[in-house]
């Protein structure tokens, strides 16, 4: 049985349905991420788990117990807020001691537990400081230490790294992974940052318009997006759509208007004529001046319309005669060359039939 069960939870605000019949089971010790664009309902769902929102339908169970009758202050969950929400009139120690005082821990035990928590988040020696004397990363660590000091069953994190700069964010990501391993507490993490989600999570639920579009391991989410939305939202993705023209064993051919026929290896048995899409990551596409003769792969001619030189890689946008833009990624790893093509160069893009992922519409 999962530790935390979200069963058919719906939350409406007036006519707007923020969370729409969502069911998720989260295992003990799991690092689980709710990922989606702003307004997709992920934060509302997190606040519903914490008890700040009352679901209009469905229930939330922890260890099999329905939490409906428990207000936030009586739930064994703890939340880390995006703004950290540190109490500005209390020192770091005061902040971390606060939940202990609220749960009537004997005052003789508090200093020891506070010290332990500050050690866990690598803030030993900062106890006497006030929040306004800390950097963003330090504030973040206080917020996490404060939430963990009472050893909650579940830690809810609402975009905790969103306010940090890129370098610090990466550091904190590694720290979060280690901390989660160390304390063994279930993390439910909300973010709109797909790379963060991929890097941190055991499993990810991609949310859109209040619904879960796909719930999977990071590599499955990235490699095998089940819907067009997931493919588009997670990383960069070419999406070629058209009616199914031909089906032959494990091979489907789509007639993409701006591109031509596209062959895809798939087990899907979609009827002829119905619409489907190929989701294809830019790094799976080969871009060459001339594709070698005799390749049975998908291959199309075009010209480089735009390029983004990013140092380690270059992103090429290739325009086909039919008017399709194909995004291809090329690592600049070959010695002696910084870049392979310029804008206006005639090129050929190609990919094997199993490079992408077929999505039935």
């Amino acid at each position, binding site marked *: 049985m999962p530790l935390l069960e979200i069963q058919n939870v719906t939350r409406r605000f007036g006519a707007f349905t923020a969370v729409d019949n969502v069911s998720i089971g989260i295992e003990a010790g799991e690092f689980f991420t709710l990922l989606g664009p702003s307004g997709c309902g992920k934060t509302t769902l997190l606040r519903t788990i914490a008890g700040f929102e009352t679901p209009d339908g469905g229930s939330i169970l922890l260890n099999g117990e329905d939490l409906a009758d428990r207000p936030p202050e009586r739930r064994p969950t703890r*939340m880390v807020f995006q703004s950290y929400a540190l109490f500005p009139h209390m020192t770091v120690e005061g902040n971390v001691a606060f939940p202990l005082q609220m749960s009537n821990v004997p005052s003789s035990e508090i200093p020891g537990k506070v010290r332990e928590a500050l050690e866990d988040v690598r803030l030993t020696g900062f106890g006497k400081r*006030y929040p306004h004397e800390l950097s963003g990363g330090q504030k973040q660590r206080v917020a996490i230490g404060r939430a963990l000091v009472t050893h909650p069953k579940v830690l809810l994190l609402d975009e905790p790294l969103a306010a940090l700069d890129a370098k610090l964010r990466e550091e904190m990501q590694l720290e979060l992974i280690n901390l989660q391993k160390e304390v063994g507490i279930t993390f439910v993490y909300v973010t709109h940052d797909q790379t963060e989600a991929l890097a941190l999570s055991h499993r990810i639920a991609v949310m859109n318009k209040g619904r879960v579009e796909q719930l999977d391991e990071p590599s499955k989410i990235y490699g095998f997006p089940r819907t067009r939305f997931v493919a588009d939202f997670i990383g960069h993705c070419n999406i070629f759509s058209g009616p199914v023209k031909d089906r032959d064993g494990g091979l489907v051919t789509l007639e993409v208007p701006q591109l031509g026929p596209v062959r895809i290896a798939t087990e899907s048995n979609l009827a002829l004529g119905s619409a489907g899409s190929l989701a294809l990551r830019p790094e799976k596409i080969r871009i060459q001046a001339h594709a070698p003769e005799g390749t049975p792969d998908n291959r199309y001619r075009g010209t480089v319309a735009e390029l983004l030189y990013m140092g380690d890689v270059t992103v090429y946008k290739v325009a086909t005669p039919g008017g399709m833009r194909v995004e291809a990624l090329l690592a600049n790893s070959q010695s002696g060359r910084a870049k392979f093509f310029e804008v206006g160069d005639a090129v050929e893009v190609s990919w094997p039939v199993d490079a992408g992922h077929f999505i039935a519409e």
Partner: protein
Amino acid sequence: MSSASVRRSARVGRWLVSGPPLLYLVVFFAVPSLIMVLASFRTPGEFGGLAPFIEDGKLDLNLESYARFFSETIYAAIFLKSVWYALATTLFCLALAYPLAALIARSPKRYRDLLLLLVILPFWSNFLIRVYAWMIILGPNAALARSVNGVLGLFGHEPVPLLFSSFAVLVCLVYVHLPFMVLPLYANLEKHDQALLDAAQDLGANAWQRFWRITFPLSLPGVFAGSALVFIPALGIFAIPDILGGPEDSLIGNVIKQQFLETRDWPFGSVLSIVLTVAALAIAGFAAWVARRNLVTPSSAREASA
């Protein structure tokens, strides 16, 4: 333009801007205050005012009025009574204004301006008129006095006058000063970050604990500002005891007024004014000192939660 002339014109600009208010304060505040300080060391004239400054080649400077203040306990007693009234006014205002300010700060944005307008609405009519209105409200034939005495009569109690009593003075003092407490409290409470209360609740604090551990300590700058704005004017007020008080409700403001207008003892009136000013400044300074020592300002609170 050279940088020196830029600096010079900036200096000129600063003087142009700050000159008029400075001049105003010097002429209408600093000079009169100095005159008052000087008057406190002089002898009253035979028919009021001051005795000549130089008579028979001797300067008229003495400490007699100060000696009188410190030797006659009645003035110290009135002074203490005034402090007591001002303190009571401040506490009642605080008790009434805090929930009101909190309510306004938490009401939907579109109602807030209207509610604030209602708070300052009394300022639209004259202060004295509003005080006189209380004469009518508290008068012996008004509904309030009749119903109070009706209830008292049921218990076999003699009727009590509401008007011309310390009760009337205190009620009106609280009424007049209430907006001065509501506004700074509102300004403070309105800035509070809901996330802090959510966090406190998430960490196990019930409503009572959230108020006393989070909201109240963070609102202390507003509490102190409001208290100073109520306490200081309440300490020197004379119109309300004059109009609504009984004979025992004379406060230090009434005595000062009396010294200048009726007794015509300017030096002693000046001494009382100076003691009042020093006391008000000392109390306000003490409050500010306490505030600085124990509090975070709302701005640092915002910074910390941003």
